[in-house]
């Protein structure tokens, strides 16, 4: 599973903070290209598999508001 965060709207700092908060639920890997910050999720906790992507995006967005 992967999520592409547009660099214009999401900061790497917020994404890293969110990963710290979610590290118990999956293994995260970050790749950065010109436009996006790509976050790959592996070994996702089976209980949160259905919602982890959206919840993670919301969490990053919440951190952006406070940034």
């Amino acid at each position: 599973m992967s999520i592409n965060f547009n660099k214009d709207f999401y900061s790497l700092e917020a994404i890293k903070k969110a990963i710290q908060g979610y590290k118990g639920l999956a293994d995260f890997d970050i790749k950065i290209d010109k436009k996006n910050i790509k976050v790959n999720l592996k070994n996702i906790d089976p209980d949160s598999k259905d919602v982890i992507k959206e919840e993670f995006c919301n969490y990053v967005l919440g951190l952006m508001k406070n940034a």
Partner: protein
Amino acid sequence: MEIKKKKNQFLISLNPKIYPLEAVYGACYVFIDRAYLFLDGNPEKEIKVFIKGKEELNSKELEKIAGEFKNELLNYTLRLSIAKNTRKIRETIVERALFSALPHQEEEFFPEKEKRGEKEKKLVEEDPLGIAIPWEEKYGKKK
């Protein structure tokens, strides 16, 4: 503003010249507990906000959320505009409040006040109207 609806989700396209990015973040934050939100697009030309219901929502409920989101956007845009317009006066008030909390430094920044104080002191010492002379001394019967 353009809205495209899909099953349980919709996309709102916004003009960043009307709705600043900061206002979009603010409005999104209000809905974070009710919906899943995702931002994309170009902050100079078009901001795309993807909104997906946390629970299965029918068309009416989606419309309601879209309407509330639009209202919240306007609310945040106005708040930002007011904050921008009143920034200088707010800063002045805070500066003045901080200065008055430092009595010794106040004289440094407002030397006229100090001069005025000296003038008043001089007048008291000179007492040209004889206010400081006791009544008995001034008008009392001479023994």
